[in-house]
């Protein structure tokens, strides 16, 4: 793998220079590319704060060796909204339902909920809990997060 190498993030080709090849995708996103929406907490896959989509697949970016993700399509929380200033349906629902407290887990949750609602716009409580079972939130007790997911799903079903 040549150094520098290139990553395609949110539709943009980004050159990663002066990096150590042992760096995780999480580290490269935050420290090399300045995309700090993806959060760094456990670095062992326990918390999903660093969740991103790689070729559309929900993945913990801390467990990806960045250099191996060259040529793949990486979508971070910054790439989910339709436009620069627009919140996505999921983000809007989180704000509206008060599902954000300290906010640290929120980006990972937003990415995971996007992933869930892509596959299932009528999730049961069990579906939601299962889909978010890897996302740790230490503030909310998850009740408002559940409400936000159902609210976002309803919005999606109504086609707006």
């Amino acid at each position, binding site marked *: *793998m040549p150094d520098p190498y290139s990553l395609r993030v949110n539709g943009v080709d980004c050159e990663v220079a002066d990096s*150590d*090849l*042992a760096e*995780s995708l999480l580290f490269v996103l935050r420290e090399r590319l300045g995309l700090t929406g993806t959060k760094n907490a456990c*670095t*062992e*896959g*326990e918390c*999903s704060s660093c*969740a991103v989509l790689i070729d559309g*697949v*929900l*993945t*913990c970016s*801390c*467990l*990806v*060796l960045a*250099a*191996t993700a*060259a*040529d793949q399509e990486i979508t971070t929380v910054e790439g989910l909204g339709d436009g620069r200033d627009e919140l996505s349906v999921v983000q809007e629902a989180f704000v509206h339902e008060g599902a954000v407290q300290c906010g640290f887990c929120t980006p990972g949750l937003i990415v*995971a909920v996007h*992933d869930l609602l892509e596959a299932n716009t009528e999730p049961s409580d069990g579906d939601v809990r*299962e*889909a978010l*079972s*890897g*996302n740790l939130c230490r503030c909310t007790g998850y009740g408002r997060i559940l409400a936000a997911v159902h609210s976002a799903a309803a919005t999606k079903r109504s086609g707006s």
Partner: protein
Amino acid sequence: MSDVVVARSLDEAQEALAHQPDATVLAGGTDLMVEINRGLRRPRHVVGVAQVPELHRWSVADNRVVVGAGVTYTEMMTTALADAAPALAQAARTVGSPPIRNAGTLGGNLGTASPAGDTLPVLAALNAEIVVTGPDGERRMGLDDFVVGVKQTSLRPGELIVAAELDRPRGRQEFLKIGPRNAMVISMAGLALVADHDARTVRCALGAVAAGIPRARDAEVWVAERIDWDDGAAVSDAVADEFGQRVAAAASPIDDHRSTAAYRRHAVAVLATRALKRAFAQGGGDDA
């Protein structure tokens, strides 16, 4: 780390490993990256195999299931593999969380060779043959000859895990596991049980209760003689309970940060009893 090769085909992966036989193979990253992130490991050479299409293949035949080393836990749960190897799907379902299951692979579980690797008891109970390829060609071996100690395999330098080939017996399969919660749990004790109504055998293997993945062979033979194979009557509570005790005798657990030896031995007995009752409930059993 001085170089990272991203292999796009089996040939490329083998070539890279022939060139650097001491390279570390990286599949889903759910084990290796944890160690790299913590600074516990710093491999000089890495060969990434997550994008090798040949390793993602799986197939189901009448008596045999072949699972490529790159097949993820999510794929074990969501494809026709789940019907062909139900215990494998059940084990996959207990691993981590959706993003972990999207990344982690059967080959990675084998390569890490942790006693708590959730697919490993299933492979043992399904008489898996592990297929590896390397400079000396292809080798096949049972799980006992592949996992030779705690996190130790018999892989030779330059070898790559290609697939596992599993039996597909006629009968129920169960995988059960104990941990402090349902999601994101590393096993404190695990058990796979497979009924084979043609061979009239029961096969039972244990996880996280020994250095390797023991089969409870004495208990298997004992219980096979006490099952009503012809009429499909449910196993009695007494037989199921004694089976549990006999399976527990095959465990050699230790005290560690996840559990105690005494609890693990108790848990394995409970799991064995429960799995047997499910596999041989009244009138059921051979419809799987």
